[in-house]
């Protein structure tokens, strides 16, 4: 399909699969591609972990506490809708062009999304089960682990899947504006040279990694979490 398409367009705007494979191979051999991919993945893992943990915690609290929610709701909408560009610039300007600023920028961009999703999930929790837990004195931790978390599973999965993608979109801008390594930085270079083959090669590498995560982590997790279904 792609090949036919490429032949049809017949230009450097869509290189043939061989070209891309070639570029991909050279990138691997030279160590460039694994290096930049690794750097980006590291940032992704760190910021994803922070954003998910914080986001779930805050989301659950806001979902369960009407007053806090009413208070923070406006802030949430603001943070949700401050352009990535703005947060990134401000982070860099305030904290310098350093790694922690980059991570912070990604987290700030992703966090409100997680909060909003988990908050919706928390609002939809089954009151009957919560009452049961209260009556049998489950306590905070037990209630969270055994009653709330399993119900949030679909929301967490949704946030995870679209979260990886979102972070990846933002990390590119973050790296482009203020880092000297990582996929975003590389893509920007290729972009300046309009080197579509390299762009595609890097994209494919990244997508492959995510596919692997999906296959090795998310799918089994899904399966385990849903094994109780009819």
């Amino acid at each position: 399909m792609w090949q036919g398409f490429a032949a049809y367009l017949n230009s450097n705007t869509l290189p043939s699969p061989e070209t891309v494979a070639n570029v991909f191979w050279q990138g691997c051999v030279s160590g460039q591609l694994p290096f930049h991919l690794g750097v980006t993945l590291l940032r992704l893992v760190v910021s994803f972990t922070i954003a998910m943990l914080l986001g779930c915690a805050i989301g659950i609290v806001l979902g369960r506490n009407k007053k806090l929610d009413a208070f923070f709701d406006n802030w949430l909408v603001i943070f949700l809708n401050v352009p990535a560009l703005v947060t990134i610039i401000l982070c860099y300007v305030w904290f310098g062009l350093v790694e922690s600023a980059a991570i912070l920028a990604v987290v700030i961009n992703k966090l409100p999304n997680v909060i909003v999703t988990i908050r919706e999930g928390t609002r939809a929790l089954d009151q009957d089960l919560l009452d049961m837990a209260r009556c049998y004195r489950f306590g905070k931790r037990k209630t969270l682990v055994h009653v709330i978390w399993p119900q949030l599973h679909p929301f967490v999965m949704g946030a995870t899947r679209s979260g990886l993608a979102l972070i990846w979109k933002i990390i590119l801008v973050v790296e482009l504006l203020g880092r000297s390594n990582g996929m975003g930085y590389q893509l920007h270079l290729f972009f300046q040279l309009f080197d579509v083959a390299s762009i595609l090669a890097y994209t494919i590498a990244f997508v492959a990694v995510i596919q692997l995560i999906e296959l090795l982590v998310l799918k089994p997790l899904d399966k385990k979490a849903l094994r109780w279904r009819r």
Partner: protein
Amino acid sequence: MTDIQININNKTYPTATKPSIANLELSLNSNEFICLVGPSGCGKTTLLNIIAGLDNDYDGEILVGRRHTHPKIGYVFQNPRLLPWRTVRENIELALDRPQPPEVIDALLGAMQLTQAQQVYPERLSLGMSRRVAIIRAFAVDPDVLLMDEPFVSLDAPTARHVRELLLKLWQQRPHTVLFVTHDLREAVALADRLVFLSATPMRAISEIIVPIPRNERNNELAIEAFRQQLLQHHPEIKQLL
């Protein structure tokens, strides 16, 4: 000796137009077995929820006797309320506030004919089986106050009989206060020390009747039937409930 004194002046749900409970006074003696009988939708579940501390949005008070300021509560809800993502056994064990020897739960599972099903997830049980799990859960916590909201519906006659016996045995072994909601007068008479008849919404107590049948006569069908007939004849105020 009064153990729990219930005075509910008014319980009106926020979305409701009229009160569900009004001027309900009820005292539970310690270790008493009380059966509540009242029309569908009168407010029995509401009352149990209030006693269980799940609903604090009412006008009135629940006074708990000196013995237990925070009585441990076992509640068989009207629907099973099991955690679908935990197995039968996990559901029971999660309710315990301290680990029990496994034999205790094994014995209860055996008595309820659920030994086979202990590793099964609740969605794969029949409703009657789920109810039995919910009953085991309430028994297993070794409660000070046991609330049971129509616990034996969906159980076939032999099982129901069996569970009734088990309930009485446990109650006699380790006495505790039981509040038991049922629509089955025969069941109520067979189990209760005292019957409380309730009016339609807004709910209040119409009549309280002590069951005079001695405990060792309780599985005598004829004695129960006789008392039932007597109730029907001599208590016109509860006629509309039976």
